């Protein structure tokens, strides 16, 4: 091999070496560039947020979880609106619709921010270059932490209250005495036993009462008969009416007697009246004597009436009982010397 040939071979080797190195560089740059959608044809879509949670240019855009492009620009429109411009691959032209929802999410729990485009299920036209898609506010870590803070406060408050309660329970000597008194459980046990017995008895009693009431309703027994006998009720009613009449008559009698007595008094005092003459007159005295005899006779008649009443069926029982008692008392008196 001549010197010249070897040199040529070495040059080829060198060329291969350099080309391989540069090819690797180009490959790396191309891969990175493709990831950032620098090559190929794209179109832009926009979305407006009030908070982009740290989204920067170059973050990925995903349509239903599939890489669809990258964030081209994040610009502030005014103090509350931030516009995110996205470079979307051309193949998505016939996929993303105007009503697809755009939200900002995170790759994993603490990864890079990512723009998620979620398809809506209502029909709409396909989104075209420069369209502004509707956005949805996503739950950010900040929001989660805020909620968690509220919860923490609540828990702290509950813990404090619980602590107070427990302290009070601990400090209550009465409660601890009660808890440490071994007699109490036995007492409670016997009390419960007694209550159970009492309940059983009460139950029986209620059953009896129930039965009684049913019997009374059905007219069984003397009380039942008494309460259900309509003839008896009628008689009683009549009797009461008669008594009432007697009362009325007695009342009018008393009035007449009063009038009579007053007229007598007048007569006695003033002379010309009959009483006056009665008291002065001897013949009248005789007549009065006769009248008193007549009254005596009337009283006898009343006694007879009373005797007759005794034989009336209503009061017969009472008088009989009375008689029996008297007889018994007499017998006892006779037996004891």
């Amino acid at each position, binding site marked *: 091999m001549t010197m010249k040939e070897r040199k040529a071979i070495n*040059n080829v*080797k*060198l060329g291969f070496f350099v080309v391989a*190195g540069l090819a690797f560089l180009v490959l*790396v740059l191309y891969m*990175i*560039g493709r990831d950032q959608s620098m090559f190929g044809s794209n179109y832009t879509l926009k979305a407006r947020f009030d908070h982009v949670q740290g989204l920067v240019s*170059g973050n990925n855009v995903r349509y239903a979880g599939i890489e669809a492009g990258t964030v081209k620009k994040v610009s502030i429109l005014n103090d509350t609106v931030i516009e995110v411009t996205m470079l979307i691959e051309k193949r998505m032209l016939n996929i993303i619709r105007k009503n697809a929802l755009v939200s900002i999410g995170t790759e994993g729990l603490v990864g890079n921010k990512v723009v998620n485009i979620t398809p809506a299920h209502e029909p709409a036209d396909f989104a075209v270059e420069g369209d502004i898609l509707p956005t949805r506010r996503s739950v950010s870590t900040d929001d989660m932490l805020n909620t968690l803070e509220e919860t923490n406060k609540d828990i702290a408050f509950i813990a404090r209250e619980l602590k107070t309660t427990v302290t009070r329970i601990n400090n209550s000597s009465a409660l601890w005495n009660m808890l440490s008194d071994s007699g109490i459980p036995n007492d409670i046990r016997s009390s419960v036993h007694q209550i159970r017995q009492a309940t059983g008895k009460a139950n029986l009693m209620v059953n009896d009462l129930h039965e009684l009431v049913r019997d009374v309703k059905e007219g069984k027994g003397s009380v039942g008969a008494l309460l259900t006998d309509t003839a008896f009720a009628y008689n009683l009613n009549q009797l009461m009416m008669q008594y009432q009449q007697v009362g009325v008559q007695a009342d009018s009698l008393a009035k007449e007697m009063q009038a009579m007595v007053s007229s007598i008094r007048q007569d006695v005092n003033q002379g010309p009246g009959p009483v006056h003459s009665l008291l002065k007159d001897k013949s009248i005295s005789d007549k009065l004597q006769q009248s008193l005899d007549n009254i005596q006779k009337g009283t006898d008649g009343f006694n007879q009436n009373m005797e007759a009443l005794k034989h009336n069926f209503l009061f017969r029982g009472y008088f009989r009982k009375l008689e029996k008692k008297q007889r018994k008392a007499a017998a006892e008196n006779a037996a004891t010397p």
Partner: protein
Amino acid sequence: MNLSPNLKSFLNEAGDIARFTGRFFSQTIRPRFEWNEFIRQCFVIGYLSLPLVGLTAFIMGLVLTMQLRPSMVDYGVESQLPAIVGIAIVREIGPVITALIFAGKIGSSIGAELGSMKVTEQIDAMEVSGTNPFKYLVVTRVLAATFMLPVLVLLGDSISLYGSYLGVNVKGSTSFYLFWMQVFDNLSFSDVLPAFVKSFFFGFAVGIVGCYKGYNSMKGTEGVGRSANSAVVLSSILIFIIDLLAVQITDALGIN
């Protein structure tokens, strides 16, 4: 001037290197470029360094992945292993490790080659024969080192990522395509371009320091060894200093 001898010699050398660098630029822009010698140096410096660089890069990627895995598993982000290893290799490990290996191999060989030429007075003979030794020896080597190191870094990165792919699959199962996608999903231009640009400076530093040490070598064969040694030490330190400056600059420019 009451400067300590060490500081004085340091400043003296720094000034010398600056003057040497200025001479390099002035000689480079002058016509009659030694193309054949440049290509030959590219072959020697670049192509012949590839096996060494490739081996170290492969081991680096594999080991880095396996070392990172337990921590990633602890944090529950094992699936992010390709991404984080990819970023580490492309941004820092690839350029710096490759440049250090390059400094060890090329810096020492340039220093020794030019040093022995100097002490055997070949350089002086060249000058007498009408050839510009600086153009022929220094410019070609420095340019070859400057342009070959980035290529070596790129190839080293790719080999390193392959090692990392094997490392991921030691205890897990990831398809090569998924690994590839995960690496590039998390890379951006700001990861690749600053690393690519700074590897030119690494290569330039290795070339210029090696040539300076060799070109100014003295005291016979002992001086040759010393210039080879100091070329490696100084260029390694310069690589780290350039790395530090590079990260400050990219940070200040906001490309990080």
